[in-house]
């Protein structure tokens, strides 16, 4: 077998070799499915033969790594690959695929294009092919990741080679002692019951809000915000258990699939004990908990951020509440009452020299003016008064100091939605009228030529019409043709209104989503310690050896859900398709819940079963007391 062998050298050992004088023995660890990994370098004088799976690789005589006198079994062409061993305690590791910061969605059914530089979005087929081809590399990477643990096991087995005194000052002792105190136990008990209680209450609220008959979540942004918080609260204990206690909790019935497991060798089931027996080689890193770690702390940090934002902004709002209320009141009055009224009146009087049909325009204007007056005296006037707004601002500032800024933002979104109901109503009326108009016009146009549209066969056929049908059809066609410009101008004006309305709403909701799901933790992690966010590996070629290093996730990829949402919005609102829809009279709408489903990626579809949670928590508590 002429396969080229690669030998993996830790960078520190390489340096140590270069600076040593006396001859050194190189000890490697090799399993059946991986390439040799240099574990330790020992002075020749102290060397005693080692057993499987360790073996002697060769001897270095003059500090020159390249001229290793290899032992018999290793006579082959080998290439040195240098690497920096990842510190497991700091959660660094190498990975062939990028770590997934969000729970992935296997059923991408809302047409959002995914970026193509992420291998994780591929279906299982590419992943399987990759697995087959790179399995050897994968094994090697696994071994690299566990370097320090391998070293520990080696030292346990051959204690004579241990030259560093590992000062493991009994942090563990301290921990044990702390755990014995009754204060700690009391707190833990409280936390246990608290977690269960929160799960019950939050789960119930979430269930009510998502009730299938009347899903408040889809209608109100406030309901969605509350639902999000409740689900996060339910999920936090689960994440905590997974990370800290290594409890295996599968996310049953996932809203999305979890694709964080990079090591398929992970056979940890039920309880994996942290301390591994010193005779058994460590198998794999608990890599699948790292994304959970990132997600959990991201959520917690965002919630704390939210509350602090809310407190700051709340005080700002409270201090300026009077002027703010006045300004908001006048602006809203202008935008919601005076502007539509003025525009409608202008339309009635032949704007821009366009000749509109008098009676129709008068009819439509009076219709819309009636609706405006009705809504204004109905609820808008009382809601827009400065006094009411001032009180509202006071309440909102108090709430935001306690619950968080997102809640106030959600409330503002809902308030705006209710305030602009009449504009939506105008739009709906005009769009329906226009649509019917266009449809009838098209049909009668075919009649003009003596043809009829055959819907079943999707083509236009000749048809014999009776005389009265023809005459009636032509009369109505002429009438409708003359009325088209009038209707179209009204329709256009209200479409513009609707468009502006939608844009404002979308912007607000996007900022809400940004505050809720900003990948803060991942970004800062990327800045602080890029080795904890592996996005693949890089090979650097030197003269005599290769260097393997981590290729961290780019900043762009961390914002991926947002770019997807933006693309989707852009397609729904600002594309050529929108123009087509406008000319055909289809309703302009932004599918809100589908867009924001993208951002719910970090949560499972249903909160965890209460029984299961209770059982696991109890298990953990009992284990701790032992």
């Amino acid at each position, binding site marked *: 077998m002429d396969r080229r062998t690669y030998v993996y050298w830790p960078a520190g050992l390489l340096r140590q070799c270069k600076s040593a004088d006396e001859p050194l023995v190189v000890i490697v660890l090799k399993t059946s499915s991986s390439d040799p990994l240099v574990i330790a370098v020992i002075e020749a004088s102290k060397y005693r033969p080692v057993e499987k799976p360790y073996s002697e690789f060769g001897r270095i005589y003059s500090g020159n790594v390249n001229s290793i006198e290899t032992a018999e079994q290793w006579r082959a062409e080998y290439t040195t690959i240098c690497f920096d061993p990842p510190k497991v305690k700091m959660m660094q590791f190498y990975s062939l695929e990028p770590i997934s910061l969000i729970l992935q969605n296997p059923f991408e059914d809302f047409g959002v294009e995914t970026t193509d530089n992420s291998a994780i979005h591929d279906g299982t087929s590419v992943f399987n092919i990759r697995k087959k081809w790179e399995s050897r590399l994968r094994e090697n990477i696994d071994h690299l990741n566990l370097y320090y643990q391998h070293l520990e096991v080696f030292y346990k087995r051959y204690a004579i080679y241990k030259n560093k005194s590992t000062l493991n000052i009994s942090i563990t002792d301290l921990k044990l002692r702390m755990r014995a105190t009754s204060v700690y136990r009391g707190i833990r008990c409280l936390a246990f019951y608290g977690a269960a209680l929160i799960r019950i209450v939050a789960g119930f609220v979430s269930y009510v809000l998502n009730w299938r008959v009347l899903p408040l979540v889809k209608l109100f942004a406030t309901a969605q915000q509350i639902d999000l918080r409740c689900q996060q609260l339910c999920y936090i204990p689960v994440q905590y258990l997974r990370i800290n206690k290594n409890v295996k909790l599968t996310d049953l019935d996932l809203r999305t699939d979890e694709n964080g497991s990079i090591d398929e060798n992970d056979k940890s089931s039920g309880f994996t004990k942290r301390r591994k027996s010193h005779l058994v080689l460590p198998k794999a890193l608990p890599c699948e908990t790292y994304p959970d770690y990132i997600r959990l702390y991201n959520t917690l940090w965002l919630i704390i951020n939210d509350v602090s934002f809310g407190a700051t902004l709340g005080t700002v709002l409270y201090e300026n509440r009077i002027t703010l209320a006045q300004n908001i009141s006048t602006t809203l009055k202008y935008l919601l009452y005076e502007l539509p009224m003025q525009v409608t009146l202008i339309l009635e009087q*032949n704007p821009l020299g366009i*000749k509109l*049909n008098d*009676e129709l325009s008068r009819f439509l204007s009076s219709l819309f003016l009636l609706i405006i007056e009705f809504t204004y005296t109905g609820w808008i006037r009382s809601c827009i008064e400065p006094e009411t707004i001032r009180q509202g601002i006071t309440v909102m500032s108090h709430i935001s100091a306690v619950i968080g800024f997102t809640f106030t933002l959600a409330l503002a979104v809902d308030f705006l939605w209710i305030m602009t109901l009449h504009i939506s109503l105008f739009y709906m009326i005009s769009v329906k009228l226009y649509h019917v108009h266009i449809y009838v016009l098209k049909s009668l146009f075919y009649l003009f030529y003596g043809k009829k549209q055959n819907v079943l066969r999707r083509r236009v056929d000749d048809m014999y019409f009776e005389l009265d049908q023809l005459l*009636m059809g*032509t*009369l109505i066609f*002429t009438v409708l043709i003359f*009325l088209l410009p009038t209707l179209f101008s009204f329709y256009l004006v209200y479409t513009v209104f609707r468009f502006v309305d939608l844009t404002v709403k979308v912007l607000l909701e996007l900022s809400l989503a940004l505050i809720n799901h900003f990948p803060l933790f991942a970004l800062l992690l990327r800045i602080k310690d890029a080795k904890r966010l592996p996005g693949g590996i890089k090979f650097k070629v030197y003269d005599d050896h290769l260097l393997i290093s981590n290729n961290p996730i780019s900043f762009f990829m961390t914002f991926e859900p947002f770019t997807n949402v933006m693309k989707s919005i852009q397609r729904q609102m600002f594309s050529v398709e929108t123009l087509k829809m406008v000319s055909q009279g289809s309703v302009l709408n932004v599918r809100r819940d589908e867009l924001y489903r993208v951002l719910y990626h970090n949560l499972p579809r249903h909160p965890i079963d209460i029984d299961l949670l209770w059982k696991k928590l109890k298990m953990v508590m009992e284990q701790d007391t032992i």
Partner: protein
Amino acid sequence: MAAGKQWKRLLWLKQPFPDTYTDPSFYKQWEKLKIEHGHLRPHSSYRSVLLDLFQFYHMIINTMLLYIIFAWFYHYKYNPILIAASISSVSLIVANKRVPWKSTIIIIFAMLTLSPVLKSLSKTTSSDSIWTLSAWFTTFYIISISALESKILPTNILLSNVTVLSSRLDTSTQVFCFLLICIQINILLPTMEKYFIKNKLKFLHILCVIATHGTVYYFITKLMGVGITIPLGISSLLLLFGIPHYYIHWESYYYKGHPILQQWDAEKPILD
């Protein structure tokens, strides 16, 4: 005369003669053809062309009737109901079996309903654009009725024309009557004429034709004075009798498919 073959007066045929060859029997061939085919009258007879042209002329006159009625209402402001009632009674007598009564009732009621709408339809449009529109509609009507097979499109164009014109009228009654009369005239008049032709009532047919033409010319006289009518009449007569000559001349000398003229070319051009 190098080859034994006879030179043929055909293009694109490879003949074993040089390019500049002139056959001596060239002129003789041509004379022979002329004598052979000369006695045929390849063109159509003068009479048939005249009759066809007259039919076309008649149709234009019938179309002008529409404008006469419009002018009655718009310019002279005659009482619409009187005229409508008289013409409706005539049409009832003539077409009592041909047009189903259900359609009539529906149409009448529809027109009654839509008359006010039609009246105010394009009030803000200036009159000039309405006249232009109407002129174009008339052109399209004439073209479509002569060129197309179906009767649907011309009818619809006519109706659009009438609708557009009716927006200039003053009262809804006028609109309704105008619509009614125009439909009756333009649908019932041809029906009547077809009936006459089928039953070989030649005298009645000629009477009808003269009546319509006479009405139109009388009205032109009344509206625009004799000074317009006479030149119009003379020029239309000239055109009526002159165009068939021109047509026959064209057919004799320029129309492809002609036996003599066809002798110039081979059936299929052989391009090398």
